[in-house]
Each structure stands twice: as C-alpha cells, then as structure tokens.
C-alpha cells in the first residue's frame, strides 16, 4: 500500500489536479483549445526539462540551461538583425548551445569540477555573453523576421480530425519531437543505458569499462543543445530576444525533473515522468490563472506541491 502510494502519489496528485480544474472550470478547462494551449505554453519548459533529464540521470545538474537559452536567442536575433538568413541564425544558435554544453562537459568530466559549481559559473558566463553581445538591449521589431516569429504562431490544421479551426502548435510539435528523441536515447540506446549506469555508480561504471568522461561530456553537450532549442522557441514566441528571457526555465526544469523522480521506483529521473512534472507545473499555471488566483499565491502553491510530492516520496521511502 505504502509502496503504491510512493510510486503513484505524484500521478494521483496529477490526476487530482486535472479533476479539480475540470470541476472548477467546467466550460473552459477540458476543451481541445485549452489543452492545445497548454501544450504550447509548456513546450519550452518541456524541451529544457527533457534535456536536463539527460544529465540528471547521471546524478549531475546543469544550472546554465536558462542563460544558455537566452544566449541562443540573442545569437539568432543578432544574426537576423545583421541580415543573415533564418537558417544561419538558427544553426549558429544551436552550435552555440552545443559548444556551451561541451564546455560544461569539459569542466565537469575532465577538470572534475562539481556540476553544481561548474554550471553555476557558466550560468554567469553565458548570461554575461548574452548581455555583452546584445548590449543589454532587447532585440525586437523589424530585426526579427516574421517567418521566424510566425513559426510560434502557427501549427498543423486539425480540421481533418474534427477539431474545426484548431491548430496543433508547431512549438508543441517541436517539444514532442525532443521528448521522443530523448526518450529513445535514454531508454533504447546503449548510450542512455550507460548514462543511467553512471548515475547508479560512477566508479563501478568506470571499472566496468565505460568511458565515463566522454559519456558525461556528450550528455552535457546534448543538454546545451536542448537549451538552445528552447531558447529559439522562446525567441520565436515572443518575437524578440532579451538577455534574461530564458532564466526562469532552469529552476522550473529542475523542479519538473524532481517531481518526475518521485514517480520512479529507483528514484531516478525518467523522461516521461519529467514530462508529467512539466505538465503539473503548466496545468497549475493555466488553471489557476483561469480561476483568477493571485499570481503570488500561485507561486506558493506550486512550491508547496513540489515540496509535498518530494517529502511524501521520501517519507514512504524511509518507512519501507
């Protein structure tokens, strides 16, 4: 019984939240339009949380994802403003993401700096670069091509499946794609299994012949890449780039992965559970706004739910 509660407590909480909003907001919450809205609203967070899961399965952290997202947006926007085509801007932003991730990986795996310290440092570095390259200003208006910002406003027409006038937003599709890729990497490839092994026991993994350094480096590079994707999605959605706009993503992503970890038997991050963590946060924001709950009370509630879920899973763990 306790074991069931430990594993399914968060899931039950998730369903409870869904039921609660469905009852409180009978006309608006469980509508196709609102659900599609939610997928779009959480898409950037989902991308960051999924790629954060890659390093968190190794027991590592990447605190720099938020400022990397900002930096990627700035890089793309700057290149747009200099007249480069959209593809060049996007490619450069993604490259910056990978390079930043590799840099994190080198610090962590080759210099042996604790991920918390190393990525705290790069968080500040990336943020500084974003401020420096943008001159601290928001890049917007004519500098951002309409094709770029239009991406976040369009989607697949859903008329064919009976949802007349509704669209599946492209941002949601990107998030879905990232989710599938990360799921495949973690659950279906040797690479992913090895990341889990590092999380299980790094020293044992090394002695069992795993190239721990290279693996960690690759995982951090992927997380940086994911952060850059999220940064581009963000820039497209707000049709602008600002050196601080991604900073809120990092804590939410870690919170989502933690929420997800409470659902796993081994207490390990799993990407599908991370997604549920993301949805819990996104649905709370969506539903509570619709119920006109004060935004500060909303924050208190979100924090309380995270603490409750984690506390619940640790209490039940101890009483086993």
């Amino acid at each position, binding site marked *: 019984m306790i074991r069931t509660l430990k594993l399914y407590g968060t899931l039950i909480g998730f369903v409870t939240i869904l039921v609660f909003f469905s009852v409180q907001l009978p006309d608006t919450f469980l509508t196709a339009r609102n659900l599609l809205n939610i997928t779009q609203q959480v898409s950037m967070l989902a991308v960051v949380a999924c790629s954060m899961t890659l390093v968190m399965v190794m027991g590592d952290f990447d605190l720099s994802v938020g400022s990397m997202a900002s930096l990627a947006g700035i890089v793309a926007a700057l290149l747009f403003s200099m007249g480069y085509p959209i593809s060049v801007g996007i490619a450069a932003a993604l490259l910056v993401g990978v390079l930043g991730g590799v840099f994190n990986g080198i610090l962590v795996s080759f210099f042996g700096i604790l991920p918390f310290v190393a990525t705290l440092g790069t968080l500040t570095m990336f943020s500084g670069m974003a401020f420096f390259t943008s001159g601290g200003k928001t890049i917007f208006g004519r500098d951002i091509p309409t094709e770029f910002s239009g991406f976040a406003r369009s989607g697949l027409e859903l008329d064919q499946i009976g949802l007349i006038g509704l669209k599946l937003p492209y941002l949601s599709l990107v998030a879905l794609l990232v989710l599938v890729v990360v799921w495949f990497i973690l659950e*279906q*490839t*040797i*690479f992913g*299994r*090895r990341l*889990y*092994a590092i999380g*299980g*026991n790094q*020293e*044992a*993994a*090394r*002695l*069992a*012949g*795993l*190239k721990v350094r290279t693996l960690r480096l690759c995982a951090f590079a992927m997380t940086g890449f994911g952060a850059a994707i999220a940064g581009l999605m963000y820039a497209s959605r707000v049709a602008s780039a600002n050196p601080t706009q991604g900073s809120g993503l990092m804590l939410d992503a870690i919170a989502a992965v933690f929420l997800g970890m409470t659902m796993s038997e*081994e*207490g*390990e991050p799993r990407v599908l559970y991370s997604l549920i963590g993301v949805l819990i946060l996104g649905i709370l924001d969506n539903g509570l706004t619709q119920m006109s709950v004060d935004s500060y009370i909303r924050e208190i509630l979100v924090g309380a739910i995270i603490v409750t879920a984690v506390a619940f899973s640790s209490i039940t763990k101890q009483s086993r």
Partner: protein
Amino acid sequence: MALSSAQLDLAPGRVHALMGENGAGKSTLIKILAGVQRADTMDVTQDGQALTLTNAEDARNAGFRFIHQELNIVPHLSVAENILLGWAYPKRFGIAIDWKRLEQQAENALLRLGVDHIDVTLQAARLSTGDRMLVKIAGSLVSLDGEEAQLYVLDEPTAALSEDEAEKLFRVIEQLKAAGVAVLYVSHRMNEVMRICDDVTVLRDGKTVLSSPIADTNRQQIIFAMTGRDLEEVHPKRKTPIGKTIVCTAKGAATAEIRNIDFELHEGEIIGICGLTNAGQSDVLQMFMGVSSLLEGEALVAGQPAPKSPSEAWQRHIAYVPRERRSEGLMLRRSAQDNIVLPHLASLSRSAGITHSKAEEATAKQFSNAVRLKADSPRQSVYELSGGNQQKVVFARALAAAPKLLLLDEPTRGVDVGAKFDIYSLMRQASSDGCSILLTSSDLPELLGMCDRIIIMRDGVQSAPIPADALTPAKLLAQFYHSEAA
C-alpha cells in the same frame, strides 16, 4: 519472516559467535537487539528481568553497543572527536571546547582497549580500516555515568581488516572479555571463531540449529549446521594441468604504488597475491586492468602491452572483480541484469547502438545460472540481495566477458560459506577452461587452497612467486613480515 524460532544466550565475559549463511537470520536478530526491528513474539531478559526493546534508545540504555560492518566514521574530524562524537564534549568556561581534555578522554578510551598506536589528533580519514574500527569501539566505550556497556555486537568486524589489524582487534576483544562484557561476534570466518570465541550459535533458515561452547564442537559440525551439507573439501582441487602459453607478463613493472614487479602467469594458472593491508596487492591487478598507469618496465597481456583503460581491458577479455563491491562494483539500486550486462552492452546491442533487451536478458539469465545466483528474478534490485549474492552478480559480469584473464581482488570478502564455495568452484571451472587468474586475498586458507603460486607484497615490492604446496598458513604469515628473506 526471517526468524521463526531463534534463541541466543549471552554471558558476561564470554565471546559468543553467531554464525549462519547469509539470509539465515543473523541480521534480523541483531536488528531486534538494536531495537530497530521488532519480532512478533519474543522475550528478551537481562539479569533475569524482562527487557523491552522498542527503539535504539532502549538498546543503548540496556548497555548494548553495535559495531557495524560499514563504519560510519566522520572522516574530516579528528580521532578524538570521532571517539567523543554523540557525547557532550568537555567545555571550558561553559562554551569553548576543551581540546586538551577532549584528547585526554579519547586517549583514555583507547588505552582501556590496550591501544596506544593511534594519535588522537590525527584526522580520522588518515586511519586504516582496522584502526577506524578500534576508534569506533573506543567511541562506544565512552559513556555517561552508570551507562556501562553490557554487550558488544561486532558484525563481521574483520571483513575489511588485514591479518595484523585483525590481531589488534582480537587483543581488544580480550580486553573487553576481561572487563566482564559479553561479546556477540558475527563472522563467516571459521578460523577466527575457533580461535577467539567461547560459545557458538548457528542459525539456519531463521532457526537456532546449534548452540554450544566452542570446546564441545568442531569445524565440521559447525559447517554442517550452517549449510546442512558436509563440505569435506571447500577448495576444489586442480584437475587439469596448467597450460604452457604465457598469458600475462610483468617485467620490472612499476606504477605509482608498486615497483619491480616480475612474474609470468600461464594459461589456466592461478597466482595469489597477498601481504599486509595496502602493500600493493590491488595495484598489481589495477595495472593489468588499465586503472593505474605503467611508469616503468613492461606489463603484457597476451603479448600486447597492458590495456590503457578499463574499457580497453574488457574488450580484450580481461575481467575484473574489484575489491569494494558496493562502491566499485555494483550499481546497488539497479537490477542484477543491468549489473551483469553493463560492460557488455555494446556486444549485446543491435546495430547503431540500440539496445537489444532479449539478448541482455538471455545473457543475464545464462550467467546468473552459472554462478548459482539466488534472486527472485534477474530484475531484482541488487541492494536487496545478500553480500554473497551481490558478489555473484559481479562474478557473473566478469564471466560474461569470456575472460582470458580474470583479476579478482578479495573476491570472497564478507561472503558466507555457501557462496564462498560456489565462488571457489567457479574459479576452478574458469581455470580449467584455460582462464588465468590473479587473486588477492587476506584469507590464508583460500590462498593456499586455490592458488598454484603465491606472491607476497611488502611496501609495493614483491617476493619471488612461491609454489603453494610449499607453504602453510603459519609460514605464509611469517613471510608477510619478513618477505625480504624469501
């Protein structure tokens, strides 16, 4: 239920051995004494009075002291602080810690054990495992007024100790005995039990099957009580001759810890490497595993230079069972299967690095059967398994590499008699199949029983390999201290 009808009588001034295979109920019994776990029905009496043990506090008040296998010492603090940890530090002016008196009290505690070689101002991290255990025992001697220790429970205390450290511990146990304290001594090591214990209780399947003064029983009887079978021969004899091919060569090899290593290991041969703690035994294995790098001389495996990394070693069919199975060997929270296939993921995969769960399952099953793993299923988490079965998982992993060279670092440490026998059989089987083995061990009968030749290490330098038939435990032990003479 781990225990059904177990009984235990402990007398002051006597050392009582508690024996049994893993899973026989020893840990449960200890947990009950510690007040951590409760039995459905039980009577605990102390001096004829009924005793309730509902929590750790009760056990402490009753004068029970527990020294566990995993030593929870605080490495950053000094020895003195570790000894006094949990008790009120002596104070000056009511606030400042009186370091002088703190150290004095700690020293006194050690002296009561007859221990005078430990500097109490030293950082605990710098102590050897054996000294840490003595510090822990000294710490439990420090008690508030009227809270004298009545009973010491030592849970496999020598599992992590070398012979000479164990000797020190035995002297301390003598001191405790002399002080009129009861000692409950949990161990797998028959030699120790025969030597230092006064009484023995053997558990099997949660029942007391033997309870007797040591003087009235013998090895055979105890082993039979534990396993329910006769183990005439614990160490299976060599049946196939040693091959001619040289598998592994060291010529004047040196790493950061060892130097002038010279030997040749033949196909199917087992060479034992032993010595005092940290004399460099493990480093010889690590040199061939690519863990520590070669600084001088030559180290060859199958004619090629020794691997540069563990990754290369596994690819070249060199398999390794590390010394610390929990910290170096296993992912405790993951399944037996995950642990077994870990180094073999690539060879078991489909193309393009996609995992092949059927193949992994089959391999895990094949090798868990080969090592006679006792688990509910290969999916069971390793931390739920007994020490012996955990070690079998590490063995299964090594065997799955189809090893040509097997590097075994203390493979039977903290393993029960039944599992030990299984491991010896596996070693003999591998050797018969042509696999060469380097074995480090602090278990002298194991070395003499399994190895063809034995190398003794002293401060990173080796003796010439000695044929095992030419040695007895006493001769071997003497060699530890005078290895230049060999």
